[in-house]
């Protein structure tokens, strides 16, 4: 009888300690969870977003927004691209100031060069265009700013630069099949009358680096760049 009581006492003692410990652990976890749910959210995880690089200053964004909106990029619409006069008006700045906008993009830009009087992309132009466009990273906008050299009449050069811009766009459209293309790519054709590239751009990546960097060679081109700014 004495042994029976001892057995029962031991049984209950060990069982109570065991169960009590488990219950204590579980209640502690439940209580921590309740505190967590009642309290503020924990440290927020970063949310995926497009890039917004340091060079995207307020004034730059303002200019870009005006240019991109007026050139039919941001709001869409029938218009596609900006002609020289429009570009000058919406940018509301001198050609040099306009070009200076792109200086921070040195590592993101390329100059696609054309033969004189031609809007046909050569093999090296295509290779550089593909490489540059594929390197989108977090950028939201791709600008194509085409020009012509000063030889020839004004209207002809406007038309030639338009063809160059569209040659670039057509190639991108056929090669990359990007459904966002119309919201991404902005075209500006400047002819030979506005914002001609000067020697400051000779060091930039060009499709014909072996050619002499004269104003004529440099401006028979389409300047392309991804813009890492959120507007």
């Amino acid at each position, binding site marked *: 009888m004495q*042994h029976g009581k001892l057995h029962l006492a031991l049984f209950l003692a060990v069982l109570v300690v065991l169960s009590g410990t488990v219950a204590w652990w579980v209640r502690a*976890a439940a209580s921590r*969870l309740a505190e967590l749910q009642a309290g503020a959210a924990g440290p927020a995880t970063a949310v*995926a977003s497009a890039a917004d690089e340091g060079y995207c200053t307020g004034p730059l964004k303002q200019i870009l927004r005006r240019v991109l909106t007026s050139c039919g990029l941001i709001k869409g619409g029938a218009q596609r691209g900006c002609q020289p006069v429009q570009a000058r008006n919406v940018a509301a700045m001198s050609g040099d100031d306009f070009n200076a906008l792109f200086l921070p993009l040195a590592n993101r830009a390329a100059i696609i060069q054309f033969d004189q009087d031609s809007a046909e992309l050569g093999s090296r132009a295509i290779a550089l265009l593909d490489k540059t466009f594929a390197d989108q*990273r977090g950028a939201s906008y791709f600008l194509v700013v085409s020009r012509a050299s000063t030889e020839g009449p004004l209207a002809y050069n406007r038309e030639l630069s338009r063809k160059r811009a569209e040659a670039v766009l057509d190639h991108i459209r056929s090669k990359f099949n990007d459904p966002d293309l119309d919201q991404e790519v902005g075209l500006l054709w400047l002819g030979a009358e506005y914002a001609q590239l000067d020697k400051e751009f000779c060091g930039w990546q060009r499709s014909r680096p072996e050619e002499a960097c004269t104003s004529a060679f440099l401006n028979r081109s389409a300047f392309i760049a991804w813009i890492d700014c959120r507007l």
Partner: protein
Amino acid sequence: MSQPRSGAVVALALFALVGTVFAAVSTADFIAFLDRQVHSVTCSFVPGLGAPDTTGTSGCHAVLMSPYSAVFRASTWGGIPISLAALSVFAYLLFRAADLLARRAAADPDETRFLVAATLLPVLVSVAYFAIALLRVGSLCKLCVGIYVASAGVFVSALAAHRGAASGAPARPFPWSRYAVAFLEGVVFVAVPVVLYLALKPGYTGAMANCGTLIHPEDRYGVRVPLGGAPGGVPAIEVLDPLCPACKAFAQRLAASGLGERLDTQAVLFPLDKECNWMVGESLHPGSCAVSEAVLCAGPAAPDVLQWAFTNQDELRAIGKDTKQVYDRIRQAFPDIGGCLGRPGVRARLNRSLRWVVANALPVQTPQLFVRGQKVCEEDTDLGLDFVLSRLIDRPQGGGRTGR
């Protein structure tokens, strides 16, 4: 009662105590995760002395998070930890040994015979779990090793006690009624803590299941990579990084749960490598951009490339800062896709994969699983995976059912 006979029972009590301590620490670690937060895990042969594993790299963490650490995972969030049953069994053996010593019954062969039978259970379970740890999980945990040793110890001690008690004792019929009572006592030792555990553990509420949905699930960019699974299965999207250890562990848990076979899963590649991902300041998994390109290049063989990447994660991350070296390693393993790597087309596609993540405003982390467009909460991707996923799979609309 002779000294050697009670000595074996004392040894059994000590081994049972050791087993109780190891199982208790393991159970406490498991239960801590019921609060759905991240915790360090004890991983030491001397619990309390070794530094806890705060990084999730120890064998103890791997075993604890493996699908084998608990049972009934699909029925209750996290399941019932195996270590809880182990704790109960060792506590029961401790009780029996203490009882024999207190009643001076250590030389009773009927009692020691029952001890042998009772200690056989932890030995068999330990053998099975040792094999699982080696063959399935691929890691040994120090706490588990402590339990294996304790299991062997109680069994050998019980054998020694019985051998001593049975020698020279007259043969008598088995006291089945006593054995039945003792067995019932053992059942009570296991059942009461389990019932308490189930009754007191936090409930799973609808709010816990609400971790958001995909804003733009459509694949306008053609970037999603089919990972196989059941044709006509429940549509699922996994955002992953092929060199992320958590993604590998998640894939293993999903496969082991058996629920992955009911999903028609597509992957969206989200390498956390600054080489291609502008959203990370530092490469968390260097080389994963190159490996992601390989997955995209592989077409129908993408699951094979992904599996290869998971298997060779450590090596690929080690060489990851040199993209060319990673490309060479990929070409060595998959010569057919070598020509595609680094090409503008595949880079643009990988970029669109990242932009799909941007379009859906997802957190910058991997892995993320969406079933029928609903996100499986990060807190539910380890211990709670089976419970939450089975509910999402069985319930077409809305969040998972509530429960415990």
